[in-house]
């Protein structure tokens, strides 16, 4: 058994970005099936166009259409593609200098073996079936089948219905590990116990536990099982729906200071009308049926009032 518990987790977000006039012009071109570069103050045609001139730092304003054909300036073989790359089978990444451009651009090349790619080989754009104004409108490059594209035509800086934004989905997969102390906490929950850690310096008991006491930086060494009964130190009544909400509002979310702990845990309060929940109220953990237990704080379904008299304010005022 490893020291720590772990579980797969995926972190994902769709980044919405405005393009500005230069990248917008480039992406509008791709949507329309044209490759547009920018001319720099040194007279070079650069694809994709840089937003600002590398020498004068002025905005790049002169656009030039280049050919969808070009020459491989460098390449590498990708034997083990990672998720979301242009191919999920081995392929080549290439730097391609398009005809009419002075510097190369990065993209993928579709060949079936490493022997089919070489520096200097002629390639052409393979357009995506559906083009939306994204670098992936170029599905990839492929070995050239013919030549003869006119290049160097100046491209108008204004276009019909220009692309002004892109959405770039980003999704990252992790194997997320809990710290050894957190692992003890989750293993305890799987056995119906609530386990914290005591700081040897200040004697504070942390639930959930932390690897070091945030007050003084001392490693928390001692495992402590705390009570399943505690005191509501503060609470709020949730009336507002939000994305990902699991419980229908209104409901009460409260900090519960378990007897024997110095840090309150956030949990759900049921078994009492929301309007009657108050600071100092004594509550106890209500567990889900044992067969539903796992390594999770969700094993505790909610907390409900014990019916005991409220705790004195002095008993929890240092834990607010």
């Amino acid at each position, binding site marked *: 058994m*490893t*020291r*720590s518990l772990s579980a797969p*987790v995926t972190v994902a977000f769709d*980044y919405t*970005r405005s393009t500005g006039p230069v*990248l917008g012009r*480039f*992406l509008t071109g791709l949507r329309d099936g044209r490759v547009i570069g920018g001319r720099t103050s040194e007279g070079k045609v650069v*694809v*994709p166009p*840089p937003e600002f001139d*590398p020498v004068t730092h002025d905005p790049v304003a002169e656009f030039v259409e280049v050919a969808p054909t070009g020459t491989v300036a*460098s*390449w*590498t*073989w*990708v*034997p083990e593609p*990672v*998720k*979301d*790359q*242009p191919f999920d089978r081995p392929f080549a*990444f*290439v*730097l391609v200098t398009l005809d009419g451009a002075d*510097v*190369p651009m*990065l*993209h*993928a090349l579709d060949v079936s073996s*490493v022997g089919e790619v070489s*520096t200097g080989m002629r390639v052409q754009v393979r357009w995506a079936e559906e083009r939306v104004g*994204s*670098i*992936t409108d170029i599905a990839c490059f492929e070995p050239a089948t013919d030549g003869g594209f006119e290049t160097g035509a100046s491209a108008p800086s204004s276009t019909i219905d220009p692309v002004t934004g*892109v959405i*770039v989905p*980003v999704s*990252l*997969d*992790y*194997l*997320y*590990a809990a*710290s*050894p*102390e*957190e692992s003890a906490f989750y293993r305890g929950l799987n056995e119906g116990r609530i386990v914290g850690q005591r700081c040897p310096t200040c004697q504070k008991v942390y639930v959930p536990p*932390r*690897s*070091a*006491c*945030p*007050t*003084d*930086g*001392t*490693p928390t060494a001692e495992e402590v099982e705390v009570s399943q009964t505690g005191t509501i130190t503060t609470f709020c009544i949730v009336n507002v729906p939000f994305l990902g909400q699991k419980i229908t509002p209104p409901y009460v979310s409260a900090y519960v200071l378990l007897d024997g702990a110095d840090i309150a845990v956030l949990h759900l309060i049921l078994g009492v009308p929301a309007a009657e929940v108050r600071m100092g109220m004594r509550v106890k953990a209500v567990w889900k049926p044992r067969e539903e237990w796992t390594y999770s704080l969700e094993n505790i379904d909610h907390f409900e009032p014990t019916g005991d008299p409220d705790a004195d304010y002095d008993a929890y005022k240092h834990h607010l």
Partner: protein
Amino acid sequence: MRDVAVVGFAQRQMPEFDGSPTCVELLVPLLAECYEQTGWTRRDVGFWCSGSSDYLAGRSFSFVQAVDAIGVIPPVNESHVEMDLAWAMYEAWLKIQTGEVDTALVYAFGKSSAGVLRRSLSLQLEPYTMTPLWPDTVSLAALQARVGIDAGVWDEAAMAEVANRSLTDAEKNEHSIRKGGSSVEELLARPMYADPLRKHDCSPVTDGAAALVLAAGDRARDVRERPAWISGLSHFIDPMSMGTRDLTRSPSTARAAADVDLSGVEVAELHAPFSHQELILRRELGLADDVRVNPSGGALTSNPMFSGGGIRIGEAAARIWSGEIERAVGHATSGPALQQNLLCVLGSTTEGARN
């Protein structure tokens, strides 16, 4: 300018860290080592700065969680960079130069193995025209290596020589996670991975953390007989795009080198995560033939994200503390294909510092 020295250094490196990506349990013993080396407690530290990334951790605010390792009552003077330890050190050095503090402890951490490192690093690229293609770090480095080979600037044998020397030197470094030299011929007989790179041309995915301690003037002399005085510190950045720079060169390294005095340097610890990148750096720095490069084994044998650069500075400093050498340079890189480069020149005396 104030005289500032590196007076403490601690590191942990491993293929897979069995613990949380906030690395608190890794940082606590590391900071304890720094206290032991300096004789300080955490209250002697005037400024803290850390380097890490939530993209590596797979959770939000991992650097806030990591602050647990310091202990923050009473409150501490603390900052963070989403960059390597070397840049956290740069911020701390500036902080000491302002006169606000005399001492600093900088640390960095990363659990690279929690995700797919070469893929996660696509998020440091230009987000419109590069990231959507998910060009992984290894592929970008391989494109660079090919450009140099095609141009005749280096060849596969020169790359293998770098790898062989690194793997041989790593045998003497307990922290290196890949070690064992053989011969250039044997390395060249191994299969290609990301053509023209073989696996030994690429640094191994490494988890780990490291810390450096800085102190000014007499505070440094109080800690060590031979503090490693910082006589030069400089960093520059090249364009991110792979198309608009000459990939066989590193203008940012050359500019950083022009800003510091490299004369008399005996050891160069260069942060080259790919073998051909060491060749680029050596050329730009114009190092003499007798300068020992990466006696620690370097990043090719162990390269924890966010501390691999700072570790180069710590390794260089340790050789000055011990009396083995008088002058050294530590280098750190960040970004795709050597985009950003930092140089830190260290010496056994404060002479040569640009005051």
